[in-house]
């Protein structure tokens, strides 16, 4: 187990996969014909974040101030060999898990929230705003904003707002203001509420609300996932993992992570893309949100309201309303363009798991490793369990990214334990 706070494990740069993709990444496209939604990004995102979104730099220096905050919130996170799980599964290979639940906000989300808030603060804006599904991104945004003394307005998908009241308290503790989305705070929210008063909300609606709020209040929008810049920031996960494996003298044969928009997955796996051509990489989604198997690889809206540009990605359609699954973070209709391209070209495989498989995986992980993982991460572990079943005698080294803890998601076991 490597839990050292040794700075050597932490990378000095973020890694951007774009220059190493097997084919050109299709550029974003304006979603409306009469104005440029790409140009509009200048008013929505901090300038430096926007620059990083479109950069082709393979490495982007992590500012010292961000590095300092990374250490404050618990980076580097541990890479742990799951020996108890290996024994339980009678597996002759090795299982490691990278534990992003060890950060202060309890998930990987803080890795990009900190730099985005830092850049927003430097630009002197009024505050930051964003959407959140399960609440992990909202918590990270609220914490990062709090660290830089910025107000944070968070639009939480209504179903999660109702199912996860503790998350709201966490965000409030970090001084974040949280409302269920759709809300009455924006024109778009009011329109959705009028047309669909019983809607449970979606991340797409939340994104549209947050962007409208940013434009109206001189706030900056915080990008949770999908856009390349968030995956670049999350590359600290994969780069640390590589270093930790190297120190242990190990080589990853298989990498597994869960995909909502793709940020924890891309951050975890993309640093392995250039120099680990033989490493098998598997992206897990919820069976109820089968974006890679039943979605189409096409240009589609990132947000339901169509304010942001269209990007080419696997998508179930921006108006897709997923069932109320446990993992709010996996309900998004699409996936990051770079991840979608790598799936489309066959470099990354995909898997889907059911809610029952996820609950079982969470239980097994808790009983063997003692860690209660987030339902989103439960998807990755469920895929790993399936993989081991199918490759029992292969003696592979499997590394799974546990993107967050599930201590605020225990209600999923409430009725069935």
């Amino acid at each position, binding site marked *: 187990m490597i839990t050292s706070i040794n700075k050597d494990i932490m990378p000095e740069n973020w890694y951007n996969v*774009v*220059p*190493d*993709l*097997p*084919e*050109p*990444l*299709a*550029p*974003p*496209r*304006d979603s409306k*014909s*009469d*104005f*440029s939604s*790409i*140009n509009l*990004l*200048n008013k929505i995102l901090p*300038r430096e974040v*926007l*620059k990083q979104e*479109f*950069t*082709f*730099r393979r490495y982007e220096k992590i500012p010292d101030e961000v590095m300092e905050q990374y250490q404050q919130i618990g980076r580097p996170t541990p890479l742990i060999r799951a020996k108890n799980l290996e024994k339980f599964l009678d597996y002759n290979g090795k299982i490691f898990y990278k534990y992003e639940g060890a950060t202060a906000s309890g998930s990987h989300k803080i890795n990009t929230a900190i730099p985005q808030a830092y850049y927003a603060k430097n630009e002197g804006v009024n505050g930051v705003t964003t959407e959140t599904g399960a609440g992990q991104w909202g918590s990270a945004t609220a914490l990062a904003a709090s660290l830089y003394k910025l107000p944070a307005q968070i639009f939480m998908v209504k179903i999660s707002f109702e199912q996860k009241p503790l998350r709201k308290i966490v965000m409030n503790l970090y001084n974040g203001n949280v409302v269920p989305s759709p809300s009455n705070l924006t024109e778009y929210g009011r329109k959705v509420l009028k047309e669909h008063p019983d809607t449970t909300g979606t991340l797409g609606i939340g994104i549209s609300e947050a962007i409208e709020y940013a434009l109206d209040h001189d706030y900056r929008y915080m990008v949770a996932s999908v856009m390349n810049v968030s995956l670049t920031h999350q590359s600290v996960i994969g780069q640390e993992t590589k270093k930790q494996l190297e120190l242990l003298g190990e080589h990853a044969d298989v990498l597994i992570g869960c995909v909502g928009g793709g940020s924890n997955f891309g951050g975890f796996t993309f640093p392995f893309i250039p120099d680990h051509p033989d490493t098998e990489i598997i992206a897990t989604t919820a069976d109820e949100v089968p974006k890679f198997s039943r979605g189409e690889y096409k*240009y589609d809206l990132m947000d339901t309201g169509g304010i942001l540009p269209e990007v080419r990605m696997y998508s179930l359609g921006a108006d897709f309303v997923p069932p109320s699954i446990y993992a709010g973070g996996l309900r998004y209709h699409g996936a990051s363009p770079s991840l979608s391209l790598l799936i489309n070209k066959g470099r990354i495989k995909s898997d889907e798991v059911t809610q029952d498989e996820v609950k079982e995986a969470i239980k097994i992980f808790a009983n063997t490793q003692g860690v209660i993982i987030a339902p989103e991460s439960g998807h990755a572990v469920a895929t790993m369990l399936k993989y081991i079943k199918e490759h029992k005698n292969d003696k592979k080294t499997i590394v799974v990214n546990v993107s967050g803890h599930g201590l605020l998601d225990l209600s999923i076991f409430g009725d069935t334990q």
Partner: protein
Amino acid sequence: MKNLIPYFTLGYPDNQTLMKFLRIMPVNKINYLEFGFPSNDPRYDGPTIRETHKIGNKNFNDNLYKDLFSYFHKNRIKMYSLSYYSDIKPKFNEFIDYLKSRSFSGIIIPDLIIDYYSEAKDTINYLNKNGFEYIPFFSPATPDKIIIDISKLTDSWIYYGLQPSTGIDIPYELDYTTERINSLLPGREITYGFGIKTEEDIKSLMKSGGSGVAIGSYLEKMLAKNDESGFLEYINRIRGALDA
């Protein structure tokens, strides 16, 4: 002499206005001309150029431009077509024959390596075989390996878009951008386009080894305003910046 490449969408704002501006074009100040053949889906263009395609689609009449194409050819101004593969793919060979018959020297296909990468090599080889220049179009999002591999298939100049779409203003690092493309393609003729506005931009690009610039959105706005003197003054200014 650095290359100045004005861009026009054929048929915009209407055939008569475009032809009027082409006739007053000072041929001693420009090197190549880039003509956008109106597209049904100019997906990688910004709002200004998109609008020109929409209008050009309604107006464009090839017969009207025959003499002008011939005039530029006689004046040794190379002409290049900007065409989307999604439009020309069904009758690609015929379209190339047509361009040759109008004395065009080559073609820029912005969506070829993005949307039809698997067909790119054969398409470029076909153009090479037919003595028609293929101008590789790259952007900051083009991976290093693709830039190198595609460039090897042709000897022509390179079109490097600085922005994700035409007429867009996303912050970027000009020095690093030019360093990157120069290091990937040493000694190659690089023309920059997409979002170039100021003379300072142009001077910096040329200082870093650029071989020219393509100007589109800004000129189209002048055509829409029928601003002949502004147009000529702008061409002069850009020429000056290129030669500075």
